[in-house]
């Protein structure tokens, strides 16, 4: 049975995440979409680990999870602070800086 399906699925997930970033307004959701992309990558890594028969891919997946966690910490902190000020988590409200 082929691994291509997994890769395709991962690609689809990645795309969904990317599109989500573009279409969703809520900062949290946007951020979650990014997380989705990261997890799509994880799936890819695992698949390749399987195909190449090395463990590197799995290790990398673990690394990615850790990094993602760190990103969540930082990200939520930032989003919180601006939410407190603006009472809104919509990324479209934050556009004082332009042109």
């Amino acid at each position: 049975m082929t691994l291509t399906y997994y890769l395709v699925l991962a690609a689809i997930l990645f795309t969904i995440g990317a599109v989500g970033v573009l279409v969703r307004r809520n900062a949290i959701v946007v951020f979650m979409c990014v997380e989705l992309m990261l997890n799509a990558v994880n799936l890819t890594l695992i698949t390749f680990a399987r195909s190449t028969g090395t463990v590197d891919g799995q290790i990398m997946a673990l690394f990615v999870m850790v990094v993602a966690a760190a990103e969540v910490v930082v990200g939520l902190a930032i989003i919180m602070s601006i939410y407190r000020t603006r009472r809104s988590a919509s990324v479209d409200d934050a556009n004082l800086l332009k042109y």
Partner: protein
Amino acid sequence: MIEAPDLSYAALAPLLFVLGAACVGVLVEAFVPRDARQPVQVALALVGTVGALVTTLLLSGTHETTAGGALAVDGPALFLQATIAGLGALSILLFAERGLDPARSAFVASAAVPAGSPRDRELLTATRVQTEVYPLASFAIGGMMLFVAANDLLVMFVALEVLSLPLYLICGLARRRRLLSQEAAVKYFLLGAFASAFFLYGLALVYGATGSIRLRDIREAGLDGGGDTLLVLGLGLLIVGLLFKASVAPFHTWTPDVYQGAPTPVTAFMAACTKVAAFGAILRLLYVAFGTAEWTWRPLVYAVAIVSMVVGAVLGLTQTDLKRMLAYSSVAHAGFLLTGVLGLGAGGEGSGLAGTMIYLLVYGLTTIGVFAVLTLVRDGDGEASHLSQWAGLAARSPLTAAVMTLFLLALAGIPLTAGFTGKFAVFRAAIEQGAWPLVVVALLASAVAAFFYLRVIVLMYFSEPVADGPTVGVPGVPTTVVLAITATATVALGVLPGAVLDLAGQAARFVG
């Protein structure tokens, strides 16, 4: 059974210095009483960065890989680490400036307090200062130094995050104009995360294509003529991730907003150090992992360079905010740097590597200098970064205007300033590889860019001073030191660049 990788601690000393200082810094935040923190943190951060600088210089000449080949300690790595450490130290000094802002610091007292709330207003006048920035900055610097030494895509990714996450945070820590600052942070964060997702996906694809993430193995698995779609796609996505950090058009969109919103010292830090780190990674990725297959990426870089130069130069023309203008200028400079990157000759020959490294050093120094001057000119609400406020500044403060002029001329690449040396180096590299049309475009772009640098000079010198113009603050010791060093370096590297060119020339050889 996996045996522990060999670690050459000597070779890692620079990194250990900075990251160690950062970790200690965290403890300091936790245990040292608030009033004592500022000096301690500053001292610590300086020890870390300067220590790193010294150790890299001591290590010069080393040419090896360590940590099981995950880290390269070679000429370029050391040169760029030294650059980053040095520029980092200067940025730390800018952070530490307490003389300019009446509230004794450029950073918000308590980031958690909502902007504009009563508490925030009372904190604004309080002289209490926040010191998290120092460990954060140290982490970022550590990440950058790791970034340029990463000989392995995974390490590169980790380094990327280590340098990015702290930056996202400190972008949001401005004491004044907090809304802008926070907005900058959010934008930077979201887009940064987005970009790193691309990088990561690219990593995965390359891994899938070559079965390894070691740069050397990738080269050996290399693109054999035909072109392995996975690998090419991977390369593309990796480049996207890096170009984003280097704020190369069309991945520059975050740059103006973030530069403008972030606290000026942070902007200086980002503009100088991030650029160096990003290009360090680009060079290593392209030269080491894809050096033998440069025919694949050369056209791409060629095109991106042109786009970046043109976009930066043209958009800079109509900016009215100095920080924003400098952001576009940095986009243009990214383009100039890419012309240097194209100076890779057959079999790794060519002066492209050395040229680019020189340019990075020069650009970093000048940029920090220019932003340092920016922090001096203030009105009631922080820095007076609107162009119109600079009219007739020369009459009010000749010295400030003179120094600013020096940096602007350097950015414009006028001879006898460091900027010219850098430009010459990269353009020479490009022409050696027959990329003269690109160089002509670059030169025309820099002529256009020169216009907006000149405009500032015209305002400062040839316009009559405006009523109720901004005041020019008297810099404290740290900023003075920064200005002195950067200005001297700008002149020295312009008049007698021999030594440094020599250094870069020798350093310009990748391991592996």
